């Protein structure tokens, strides 16, 4: 599913003293099959943007009560926003938002806090039951739930009747993700999927996302604060700042703009920091900012100068 957004604007608490414009003319295209990263500060509009993708925040023209306002004399009407996710037009009142939400799975921050059912089985099945266009038989449900739980790397038969609250933190997060992918969404959106985990837990979640990306969901979009994570994993990255998109680039090109990123108050990955420190000492290393490539480039450079046998 190709995602196209053009000229998105959104204001929280409009016409009140607390009004803040969270999105300003945001245009962004995310292709099918991407592993797309979104970075930016708290309050930069990244969460507001991703909530548009499955209609949690609606474009005004898609709401029932929306009436087109006649432009006043001499007024040039503002260009209409565009938001398409695959075949769904999110600016249209006639769009079936339930079908859209089954196709665009959304995993919020700390998804383990949203577990609620008495058993793992029921918790994972909840979304499936609610999004299915027709009632599912018990066997069909069980089959789908088993597949989802096993995909996230948990033993289904062992944990299906356990309370989700008996599981460890990492396992809970996996169950929560299973509850989203069980509807087989084509696009999976995650808001800081690795936040709050220890380093190994983080690595496991990123490995899981790659597995989901290869098998079930064609497109994975994730919001992150961890630049190293972004540099190692993404095909492309969008940088949000003050409600606008500043860059949309593959990590290998994005982190060449280190100065601008730092001036936006963002971090740069460790690999980029090392490259900059080396460059100040007159050593230019070109790499795609993954750890592996940095090490390879430094060693290659050393070999060239004959310092490594």
């Amino acid at each position: 599913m190709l995602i196209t957004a053009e000229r998105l604007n959104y204001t929280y608490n409009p016409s009140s003293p607390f009004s803040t414009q969270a999105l300003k003319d945001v245009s962004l295209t995310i292709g099918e099959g991407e592993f797309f990263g979104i970075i930016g500060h708290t309050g930069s509009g990244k969460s507001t943007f991703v909530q548009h993708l499955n209609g949690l925040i609606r474009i005004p023209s898609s709401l029932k009560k929306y009436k087109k306002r006649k432009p006043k004399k001499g007024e040039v009407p503002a260009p209409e926003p565009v938001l398409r996710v695959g075949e769904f037009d999110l600016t249209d009142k006639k769009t079936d938002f339930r079908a859209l939400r089954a196709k665009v799975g959304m995993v919020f921050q700390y998804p383990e806090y949203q577990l609620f059912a008495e058993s793992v089985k029921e918790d994972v099945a909840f979304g499936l039951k609610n999004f299915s266009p027709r009632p599912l038989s018990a066997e069909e449900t069980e089959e789908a739930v088993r597949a989802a739980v096993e995909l996230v790397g948990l033993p289904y038969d062992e944990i299906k009747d356990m309370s989700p609250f008996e599981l460890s933190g990492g396992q809970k997060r996996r169950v929560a993700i299973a509850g989203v992918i069980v509807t087989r969404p084509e696009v999976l959106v995650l808001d800081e999927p690795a936040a709050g985990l220890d380093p190994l837990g983080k690595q496991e979640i990123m490995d899981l996302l790659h597995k989901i990306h290869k098998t079930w969901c064609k497109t994975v979009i994730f919001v992150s604060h961890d630049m190293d994570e972004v540099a190692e994993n993404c095909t492309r990255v969008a940088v949000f700042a003050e409600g606008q998109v500043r860059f949309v680039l593959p990590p290998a090109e994005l982190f060449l703009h280190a100065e601008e990123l730092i001036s936006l108050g963002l971090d740069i990955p460790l690999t980029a920091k090392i490259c900059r420190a080396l460059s100040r000492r007159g050593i230019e290393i070109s790499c795609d900012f993954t750890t592996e490539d940095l090490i390879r480039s430094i060693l290659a450079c050393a070999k060239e100068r004959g310092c490594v046998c």
Partner: protein
Amino acid sequence: MNAIEFHNVSFSYGGSFAIRNLSLTVGEGEFIAVLGHNGSGKSTLARLCNGLLEPDEGWIDIFSLSVGKRRNLFTIRKNVGIVFQNPDNQAVASIVEDDIAFGAENIGLAREEIGRRIDFALKAVGMEAYRHAACSRLSGGQKQRVAIAGVLALDPKVLILDEATAMLDPRGRREVMDIVTRLNREQGRTVVLITHFMEEALRADRAVVMNRGEIVMQGTPSDIFERHEELITYNLALPRIGCICEALKQGGLPVGATLDEEKLAEEIAQCLSRQND
């Protein structure tokens, strides 16, 4: 005098032991980092320090006062402040000033004194401008700084941070860590920093690694990170920069172990120029 002393402490939540025969001494004014993967007993350790939990075996002294004695608890809790992980769960009032005053009011300070304590605490965390702001409208990092201020208003000698930066973005994390470092260096407060961000542990005087309720490694942070094979057996990863050092060494570039990117760059530059001469 030692700030915290654990003598052969064990504790269980009913099942297996969360803390197992643990002994630990933290000197006054020391900055100690406690590392460990999820479930290694780090948070239990924090809760034992001010009597939120009582040990099953062994005893704990805080400035030579036993935590096990009920009449000591009030003094101990004044002296040991804990900041927890979730910034949203720790605010008790809607306005910053009231929130900071809460603890001070509860230990029965005079009104003027509370005012002075609020001024002091706000200044210490750099939040003077937010005195009358609503807690709910602050960022995560700001909320954590208010939580720290609330603890500081009690003028505690020991500050325990139980993964207090885990839910913050990088800027918020830096803000909180800078404040904590300053409180330790300038005001001489003892700090116990519980974290799984290896980079944060580098600021400490001493690091302690926990696994299954026991202390398995101790030393200065750079000592600990040099023993990376051991760390991995305790389910802890080396900081990324440590992995890079290691990979370069294995590739035949003789760089020394360091955890600072400037130093690493210097090492690499030296290695590269050596052969040129």
